[in-house]
């Protein structure tokens, strides 16, 4: 009897192993994208696609599990914060090494941060604006001493400029454009993959990193293929040349692929938001009630339906959906296309059909894609539906657009935002804090608001921060320095036999969970 059970167990084990082998591997996974890689150096890379690759070949002290938005320790085991909020002490995982045997320890962390601060690359402000210095306490403990208390500092540590690199491979005084410039000619970090081959604008081949401390990738290789345009990428996906494709498809391609039985659609909330900015220092939008009237007349669903073919989500707060502390205050106060509210306010202000509120509404035609002109046209229609507003739509290319907002030439204008770090602070203080607001041409300033931003930046208790952000969002719907319109939806398409794809608003797309199944 025992012998039979033993044989059965062996057979079951063999079958499971075989099916596991069938499930995993099955050749390289081919990933198509129209994005570009700029610099293969965490000290200078400042675009989402290069960061996406770094999420897979490096690790940070903090990070996000695949598909999730909760911050967890990665290379660190834990952290503590000093009473004054200015010192963060990270306890590092022990026993980790880079592929050449260089130990991962507090010295490597300090070296990497010092390198970012010295090189002053494009994203270095994410470090230099916050960190005063890094101290090595012992080989497994490192202190980040901040210039000021920053409650969301762990979110910053999860960004790529904070990623530790191998001090024996990376040059201390030079930004690396290409892996061939590194000692050994290869990029190997502490992440689940290493770069096996790099051909700029053609392909990057990632192979599992045998020294990775976490769960091994479920695939044997990922080949990233770069496409010049979305249509060709779509055709390659439909033809089966790609296993999955992500960023960026045209709205019409998304609509067709969603309806196709040949591919699977994976949708997720993106962190990208679009909104109207009001210049709060000049007429007419010095007056907060006029800002309210214009915000009330916005019909988000109509914009999404007409311009984006239903492919984005209406947004009722500057804090995006899915982020902690998000509330829908604009929905509660105004809803969509609330013409009664708008007309009531405008009439109370003395506007009429013979004396309309006139203003210029600006957009930039290519920075955010081809849909911008349509969005501006639909918004103009919506404002003028009140019968009491007369809008002149104007446009300027990005460089001129930036100059215009710096010179306070645009009373109302469209902008978009991708976050630098995943925290409501990045979506709020930049627009309504006195300093940030001026930098973005909004010029909203209220000491009550500034005090609230200082409070949320220093308080570390999550519940307290949540309350503060809920208050800020309530005020936002009243004072309307900006009016949120929609939140972008992420679309990723895969072949039907691909599983394990997880995308999240953090834009951290981890390849290691993806596999081809029979």
């Amino acid at each position: 009897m025992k012998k039979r059970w033993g044989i059965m167990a062996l057979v079951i084990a063999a079958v499971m192993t075989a099916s596991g082998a069938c499930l995993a591997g099955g050749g390289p996974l081919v990933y198509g994208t129209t994005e570009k890689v700029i610099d293969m150096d965490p000290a200078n890379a400042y675009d989402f696609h290069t960061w996406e690759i770094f999420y897979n070949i490096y690790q940070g002290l903090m990070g996000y599990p695949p598909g999730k938005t909760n911050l967890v320790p990665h290379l660190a085991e834990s952290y503590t914060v000093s009473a004054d909020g200015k010192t963060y002490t990270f306890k590092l995982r022990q026993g980790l090494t880079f592929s050449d045997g260089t130990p991962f320890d507090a010295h490597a962390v300090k070296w990497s941060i010092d390198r970012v601060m010295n090189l002053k690359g494009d994203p270095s402000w994410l470090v230099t604006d916050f960190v005063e210095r890094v101290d090595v306490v012992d080989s497994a403990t490192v202190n980040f001493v901040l210039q000021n208390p920053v409650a969301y500092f762990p979110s910053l540590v999860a960004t790529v400029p904070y990623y530790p690199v191998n001090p024996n491979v990376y040059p201390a005084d030079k930004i690396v454009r290409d892996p061939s410039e590194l000692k050994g000619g290869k990029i190997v970090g502490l992440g689940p993959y290493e770069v096996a081959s790099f051909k700029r604008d053609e392909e990057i081949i990632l192979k599992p990193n045998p020294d990775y401390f976490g769960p091994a990738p479920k695939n044997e290789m990922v080949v990233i293929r770069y496409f010049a345009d979305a249509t060709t990428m779509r055709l390659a996906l439909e033809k089966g040349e790609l296993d999955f494709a992500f960023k960026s498809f045209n709205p019409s391609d998304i609509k067709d692929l969603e309806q196709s039985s040949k591919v699977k659609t994976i949708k997720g909330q993106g962190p990208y938001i679009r909104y109207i900015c009001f210049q709060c220092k000049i007429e007419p939008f010095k007056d907060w009630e006029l800002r309210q009237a214009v915000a009330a007349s916005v019909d988000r669903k109509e914009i999404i339906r007409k311009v984006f073919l239903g492919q984005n989500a209406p947004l009722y707060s500057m804090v995006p959906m899915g982020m902690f502390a998000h509330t829908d205050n604009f929905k509660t106060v105004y809803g969509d296309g609330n013409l009664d509210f708008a007309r009531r306010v405008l009439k109370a202000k003395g506007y009429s059909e013979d004396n309309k509120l006139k203003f210029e509404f600006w957009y930039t035609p290519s920075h955010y894609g081809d849909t911008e002109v349509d969005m501006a046209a639909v918004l103009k229609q919506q404002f003028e539906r009140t019968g009491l507003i007369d809008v002149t739509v104007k446009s300027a290319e990005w460089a001129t657009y930036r100059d215009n907002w710096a010179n306070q030439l645009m009373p109302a204008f469209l902008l978009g935002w991708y976050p630098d770090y995943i925290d409501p602070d990045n979506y709020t203080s930049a627009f309504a804090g006195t300093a940030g607001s001026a930098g973005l041409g909004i010029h909203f300033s209220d000491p009550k608001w500034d005090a609230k931003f200082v409070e949320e930046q220093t308080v570390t208790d999550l519940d307290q921060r949540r309350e503060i952000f809920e208050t800020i969002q309530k005020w936002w719907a009243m004072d309307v320095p900006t009016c949120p319109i929609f939140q972008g939806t992420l679309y990723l398409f895969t072949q039907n036999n691909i599983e394990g794809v997880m995308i999240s608003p953090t834009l951290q797309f981890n390849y290691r969970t993806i596999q081809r199944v029979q």
Partner: protein
Amino acid sequence: MKNILRYVIVRAALTLPMLFILLSVVFVVIRVMPGDPVSSMLGGHAPESVIEKKKEELGLNRPMIFQYVDYLWQICRLDLGESMILKQRVIDAIKLKIPATIELTFFGMLVTVLVGVSLGAYAADKRRSPQDYAIRIYGIVIYCIPVFWLGLMFQMIFGIWLDWMPIAGRTGARVFASTFEKTGFYVIDTILIRDFAALKDVLIHLVLPSVTLGLMLSGVFVRLTRANMLDVLKSDYILAAEARGIRHRRVVYKHAIMNAFVPILTMMGLQVALLMAGAVLTESTFSWPGMGRLLLERIYMRDYPTIQGVIVFFALIVALVSLVVDIVYALVDPRVRY
């Protein structure tokens, strides 16, 4: 010999003002274009101080005239400069991409000549027949069709509907160029290492883009070949050959075509400019990683030095090919002299 030398020197010297005008026009046009490399690189996010620092680093806050003089001085030293986006030397970027473009344009020209010359010869042979009219209409229509549209249609028909051909890239998704690349010319590289499976893959990937590019120009060659062939077919020696009993097919497709080919050869050199222009759109459509795609991408990034460098390089190629064609023509035809 002295005459030829003087001719070559004069032709070469005339290329210099052409290049200078081209450089200046390109310099002005790309700076007049909306946008700049810093906005392109950093978007709307970076603090003002970072943006200003970047502009200073790239010399973009200097007066335009100083930027222009610096640029011309660089060109005089044969230095195409450094990419503002990638800090990569422009000449290195060109060296990486030029083999892909040369490979594509070579096979494209092959298609052009094969299709254009054979159809043109056939049309001349069947003068005033329905076939002649059809071929002449083809010659006009194919020339008018935008090359990117033609490329997309081929992708749709042969790549998707019929599933006969791949639609993008130089190699298949599971063929890794890093295992065989030596010269950058994948056809040659795969032959050198005797990887015939990879050679087959590379050639299959060449089919749609080179046919797209080649057909675009074939219309010109159809009409040129037909016109030349009609002249040659009226010649006495052709009549004599037919009178001697040589088969008509041999007379037309061996004797007449060889004599009609000299002007076609000249035209091949002169069409290089059109081929390069077509390559920009073809490479974009087929995600072909060559110079054309490099130029398009760097235009989007407002990477001024790379845009200028690539255009200058294209201009040099066109000028060189034209010069070679003119010299060959001068050698062959003693009536051509300065």
